[in-house]
């Protein structure tokens, strides 16, 4: 049985079919990329996979368990967390606190202990802080732990989003355009980071991205969406050479002019 099994996922917004019959099955440890032009429905797929939208029809199964109809926080608790394309950090909290906030669902200190700040509670906070610091260390953010999230440079904000998502102990990590707006060198750093996270945390990753040179070296499999439909899927090299993909990205006529 696959870790994540998505079947016939469809969502309608009024008369508009944003995602039509999306199928995906992901094995544990895989890295799958979803690509496609703007407006293809990639983020909508993520929004359904994290409970923000409820699909009109179709099923989402994580470890065989039906997820449709759960709330976003329940998706996170079952083990699917995400980052956001338009960064959504807790901007007025420190970097360390941002990561700690993602640990809330694993918190075992009850309200009374928190009010009284018992020794046990302080010890648990210290253990959490040590864990958070070692995570920030691995993502290269340790020296900025006490900065406010909103004061971080853009690239670090992206990293912080990933650190925060990892703190929930996800089975599946969804990265929504992790290199949007980044320059080439940053892009390479991020590709390394994603590969490292996959190795170190043994987490399954699904990512959305436009940059082919980012996706190609790290993805095991690629799915291509266009106007809500899956137009191609398979190994990176095969997908890259697929004429339908080239047409979706570059428009018809590109090949005919002999530029492919």
């Amino acid at each position, binding site marked *: 049985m696959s870790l994540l099994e998505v079947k016939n996922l469809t969502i309608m917004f009024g008369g508009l079919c944003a995602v039509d019959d999306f199928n995906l099955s992901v094995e544990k440890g895989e890295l799958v990329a979803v690509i496609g032009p703007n407006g293809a429905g990639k983020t909508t797929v993520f929004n359904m996979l994290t409970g923000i939208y409820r699909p009109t029809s179709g099923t989402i199964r994580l470890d065989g368990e039906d997820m449709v109809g759960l709330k*976003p*926080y329940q998706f996170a608790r079952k083990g699917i967390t995400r980052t956001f394309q338009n960064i959504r950090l*807790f901007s007025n909290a420190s970097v360390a606190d941002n990561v700690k*906030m993602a640990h809330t669902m694993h918190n075992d200190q009850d309200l009374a202990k928190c009010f009284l*700040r018992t020794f046990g509670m302080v010890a648990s906070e210290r253990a959490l802080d040590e864990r958070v610091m070692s995570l920030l260390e691995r993502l290269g953010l340790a020296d900025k732990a006490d900065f406010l999230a909103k004061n971080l440079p853009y690239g670090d904000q992206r990293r912080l989003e990933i650190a925060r998502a990892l703190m929930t102990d996800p089975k599946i990590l969804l990265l929504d355009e992790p290199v949007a707006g980044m320059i080439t060198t940053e892009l390479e750093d991020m590709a390394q980071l994603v590969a490292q996270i996959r190795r170190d945390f043994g987490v399954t990753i699904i990512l959305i991205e436009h940059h082919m040179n980012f996706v190609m070296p790290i993805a095991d499999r690629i799915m291509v969406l266009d106007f809500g439909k899956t137009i191609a899927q398979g190994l990176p090299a095969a997908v890259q050479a697929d004429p339908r993909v080239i047409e979706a990205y570059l428009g018809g006529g590109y090949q005919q002019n002999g530029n492919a």
Partner: protein
Amino acid sequence: MKKLLKTFYPALLVVALYIAVTLLRSVGILNGYYIQVMMFAGINIMMTASLNLVNGFTGQFCIGHAGFMSLGAYGAAIVTTMLFKNVPAFAQIPVFLLGLFVGGCVAALIGALIGLPSLKLKGDYLAIVTLAFGEIVRAILRLIQPIGGARGMIGIPNYANLAWILFFMTLTLYLLRNLIYSPYGRAFIAIRDNEIAADAMGIDTTRYKITSFCIAAFIAGVAGGLYAHVLAFIQPDSFSFTKSSDFLVYLYAGGSGSLTGSILGAALLTVLPEILRFLTDWRLAVYAAILVIVMLYRSEGLCGGKELPFMRISRAALYEKPLFGGRKKDSAVSGKQ
């Protein structure tokens, strides 16, 4: 010893304040009127700090906080005036504390009842629900004749004195500070800063909003109980929307999202109208003008999200050994704030 002092100096400051005030009163420099203003300042600090938990830290917008205060005031007054009236001296304090507790519980319970449906609403809608709530409580209290109806309740024993109020104020601030620097407080702040992200990170936002709302209602209830036992007289119209808006003014002038701001805002703005009494008819106009000037030049409030050291718990504090000062390695971290 040094560490003990470092931990408890805010409480010692309050004790020192109390001793100073008592001395000044005994030599006749301060009269009962000043003491009463101080008591109201203490109660207003509790009200503002609890409102801050909902509005400033959890990012909701409650504008009917006086409603909870009135529930607490009536709840406590019913216990001390009707259930246990004319108790012997030794039983007065337990009855008083029981009254405050009952007042807090009534407020928290009603807080949960109106919070459950309305905290799913966002922004303006929640404001309207809480506004309506405050007015409904007032309207209902006016109708209940056994507790005086619109005329109010008289003959409440004046158990509350400055010492009690300072004690409860300090306790409230201490507990709230601990809460804010705990997983609960972080969840509240996460909801305030980005509710969608908080949800996506596994935080049950409705549950935490209700928790925050109930805690604030409980504190407001206790503050209301103290208020009733200072004035010895309460009437529904003392807890109108004007009262709620006072707390909002204290909160935003002091700086929302800062407990220090609540202390400063409530204390200064309670005292200011009294200081301005020499202006007679112009008093409230000048008061309002001062507020406008503060908000123009410091739109984020006096404290603007910042805290004094004793209202903050830094990361480095986690690594300090109790009573013996911090380890060297970790003190390097705190220097960076």
